[in-house]
Each structure stands twice: as C-alpha cells, then as structure tokens.
C-alpha cells in the first residue's frame, strides 16, 4: 500500500497491521536519526501541544489549523496515553512525517517512553488491539529517536517540558545522547518533565517526582545567554488551551480539549507567522457524533476512584 493510501486509511481511524507498523517505524527512525537535538525549524509554523491519544480531537485540530503539507507543523510530544486512540494518533503522525518530512517535526514528550506508556495506557491499548506487545515495541523503539527540542528561526526555543539546572546553553542540549529511554533524572529527564513556576525564583523540586520547577530568573537568564526571545512548551493542562508566563516570554500550549473526556478544557495551537508574530488558535473537542467509543472500554471516564 502506498503511503498516501495508508494515510487515507489512518484518517478513517483504521490501524495498520503489525508488519506495516514495523516498516513505518523503521522508515521514520531513518528520518529522525538525522535530526539535531536542537532541530532548526523555519517559520511560519504551527506548534501543537499534548494530544494524548485523542484522535478525533487531532482531526479537529487539522480542521482548525489546516493540514500538512500546506501547514508546517511542530508537535511538542505526548502523542500517546490517557486517550482511547493512541494507536490511531501516533500512526497518523508517523505517516505524515514519512510523507512530508520537512513539514512535520515531532519532539519527544515524557510519555514517549517504555516505562510511562506501560502505566498510562498505550501498552494496554496495543495489547488489546493486537493481542501482543509488538506494535508497542516498534513505536517505543522509534520514540528513542525523536528529537528533544527545536529552534524556530533561531529565536523561539521549543521543548516538551522545560529547563534544567544542568543546561544553560543550547550547545549542551546538542551534545546529549538522546537515543535511549529517557532516564529518571538528569538533563534529558528535566527537558521533558520540568514546569515553570511563577511563584518562585530559581529551581525547586517538582511534585511530579521528575524534573524541576523553574522561575522567572531562570527563564530570563536562559533567553539572554542563548540570544532567544521565547520558550514554547506543553506538558501542563491549560483550561483555556494556553498560558503565557514571565512577562510573555514563555508559553504553554495544550492541544487536548476536554482532556481525559472529563476536564472540559479548551485546546489551542500556536500559529507563528513568517514575521514571528504569535496567535493562539483555540478550539473545543470534536462533536460527540464524530467520535467512536471503543465498545470494550468503559463508557465514561473514571469518577470517585
């Protein structure tokens, strides 16, 4: 089957067979392996935050923001887990990456690891669908090749989580060995797990148990020393789809509307034009009649548990 035919299939919410997934992941790895840890991306570009297996909302996002190759996309990670359709989501994104490698950039989120996906749903979803863990293995092997950050026109730094006390320059990110499972601690872990905190200065322990929280002074110093203007990141649920902090020098972008089907939040993507102007395009969850709830799953999200 041609990639275009596979994309048609994926857009219909159909998954590929195991051999096709293996082949797809191998091809995507060969593209990813060439990318720098700080990948250069050219504006205009639309930046997308966490998706978490919410396939129908990903399609809604494409309706709102346009689709590849017309729109240049930068995804900030967290494609899988929590939602019901991690397989459909990551499959479609990989196919689009294969078809339009220069119009799709995929960063690694803290969920793109073997350990987290075993806890938060992707492993279970793969096992339910295929009766074994092969598809999960192929995708999680591919995750080890996803790049960790991007730099838009040398001015906007994009990463899934945030900053690290072990990283003060972009060059330090460039020399990290990213081709491995994300460790529990250290610079690599911090980049995908950390959160901004406008109530404190400096770095502090994170309640997440991984990464750190970082304050205004840390951001100011990082921007200054690396001659950049803004940090774009995801990783944290935003009721309004996005949040700007630190005198509008850091933006959080959240692209999973009605997260876990119970938070009833809005989502957004950040559209950066060729002049580096920023616009948060917000959208709500796809209408109910366009969704399919897998019959073997509980019909409603967890409450009282």
């Amino acid at each position, binding site marked *: 089957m041609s990639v275009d035919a596979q994309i048609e299939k994926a857009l219909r919410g159909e998954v590929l067979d195991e051999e096709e997934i293996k082949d797809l992941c191998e091809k995507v790895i060969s593209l990813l392996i060439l990318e720098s840890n700080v990948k250069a991306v050219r504006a205009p570009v639309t930046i997308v935050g966490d998706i978490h297996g919410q396939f129908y909302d990903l399609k809604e996002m494409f309706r709102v923001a346009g689709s590849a190759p017309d729109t240049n996309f930068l995804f900030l990670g967290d494609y899988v887990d929590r939602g019901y359709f991690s397989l459909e989501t990551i499959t479609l994104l990989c196919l689009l990456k294969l078809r339009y490698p220069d119009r799709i950039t995929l960063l690694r989120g803290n969920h793109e690891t073997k350990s987290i996906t075993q806890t938060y749903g992707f492993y279970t979803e793969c096992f339910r669908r295929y009766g074994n863990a092969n598809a999960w293995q192929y995708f999680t092997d591919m995750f080890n090749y996803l790049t960790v950050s991007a730099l838009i026109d040398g001015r906007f730094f994009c990463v899934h989580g945030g900053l690290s006390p072990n990283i003060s320059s972009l060059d330090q990110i460039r020399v990290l060995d990213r081709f491995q499972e994300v460790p529990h601690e250290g610079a690599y872990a911090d980049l995908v797990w950390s959160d901004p905190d406008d109530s404190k200065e400096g770095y502090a322990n994170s309640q997440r148990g991984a990464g750190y929280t970082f304050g205004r002074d840390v951001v100011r110093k990082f921007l200054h020393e690396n001659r950049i203007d803004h940090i774009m990141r995801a990783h944290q*649920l935003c009721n309004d789809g996005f949040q700007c902090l630190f005198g509008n020098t850091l933006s959080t972008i959240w692209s999973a509307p009605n997260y876990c089907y119970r*938070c009833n939040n809005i989502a957004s993507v950040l559209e950066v034009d060729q002049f580096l102007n920023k616009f948060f395009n917000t959208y709500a969850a796809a209408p109910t009649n366009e969704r399919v709830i897998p019959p073997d799953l509980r019909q409603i999200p967890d*409450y009282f548990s």
Partner: protein
Amino acid sequence: MASFQRCITSFLALAPERPKQILSLGAGFDTAFFRLRAQGLPPSLSLWVEVDFDSIIQRKEAIIRRSPALASLASLDAPQTSPYRLVGADLATADRLIETLRKVPLDPNVPTLVILECVTVYLQPAEVPALLRALGGYFGPGAGPCAVLGYDPTSEATDRFGLIMIENLRSRGIEVPSLMAFPSCQARQQLLTSCGWRFPQCLNMNEAYAKLPVQDRRRVERTQPLDELEEFRLLHQHYVLWWGVLGDNPLALMG
C-alpha cells in the same frame, strides 16, 4: 477510602473503654467492617450499622451468606448479638430513616460516628439538610457525642468540570442532583451549622493532601512520577471531606 479508614480507627481508639457505634449511611457494597474485623475488632465497637436501599441490602446480605468467611465475620449465625447490622431505608425520607434506626436499636446515648461516603451528592438539595437535621435531632442535646463525616464531589454552577461530570454520568443513567448545591467549603460549613452541627470543617482533597506529613508526600511523589499534576489538582479540587460534631465534647478526628 484511606482517610475514612483512619478516621474510623482513630474514633474507635478514643476512650477505648467506652462502647461506640458506627452508622454508615448509603454504605452500598462497602467492606470496611470486614477489613476491620479481619484485623481484630476493637472491643469498643458495640454496633456497626449499614443503611442503604432495600434492594442493595438484600443483595449484600446474599453475597455475605454465600461466603463462609464473610458470614463468619458478620456473625450471621448470631444476628441478635452480632455487632454488624444491615438495614434497608431510603435516606431521602429522613423521618422514616430515624424510625428504622430506633428499631435496630441504634443507641443515641452511645458515642457514634456517622459516615456519608459519597452519598449526599445523590440526594435532592433539600433532602441533605433534612437528613442532617434528623440525625442531629436523634443524637441531639443530652445524647452521647456524635460526629458526622462526609465525602462528596462538588462543583460551582458554571464550573466546566462539574458540567461535563453531570453529562458523563447522565449518559450512564446516573444523576447527581446535589453536585452543585453546596459549591464551596464555606457553603458546606454553613449547612452543617444551620442543621445544628458544631465545629464544622470542610477541606478539598488538595488541602487534605497538603496536611499530610511532608515526608509521606515526598515518599509518594518519588514512588512513581505522576503525570498531569494539573488534572490531579483539578480533580481533587472537586472532592471535599467535611465533618461536624454534636455535643460539647468535640471528638478529635483529624490530627
């Protein structure tokens, strides 16, 4: 729920020579009694009464009977002397509930902990104060000390999380009429006061979590990285622990 388990154990440990009662309203298929009894029932527990709709109580009784272990823990072979009683009643009709409790007999002069774990949310808004007043009247002035401990989801009228919760539950045929009836901790404390309960307290689960010792919280946080703190906090903001006491002698339930 762990907090409830701890409250029950602390309550039973107070003044251990005095007999005590637990009244669990809307108990459903709760197994707290069996877990407690399996560990060795505190001698001060004189009565553990569980109340729910007749249909639930009958099913629960049937399940207990089918299991020799449970039947033995419930002392079903000696119902008059068993500390465990299953009672069918509708909490929406407070007067009839009180009559049923009188017949058990639940002794209003014995220190009693009344538990409402995720129950009042299912009542109509007017039925909640009616229930609290009726209980207050039964255990009221002159009777033994009594505390009520509740846990409920809660939401403000325009709160998006609450609105989607109502929708999600409704699609499963579950209604939560009082979800938005007492939208703040203050409202819940006022409710308790207006129904005659003293020293009312209410915490959302984020506040309750913050009260745990620092080392316990750090230990839990380090055990496994918790994804999605915002969602965790959002969820726990919408659940409250609340309590009140009767009599001059407040029971120190939560340290």
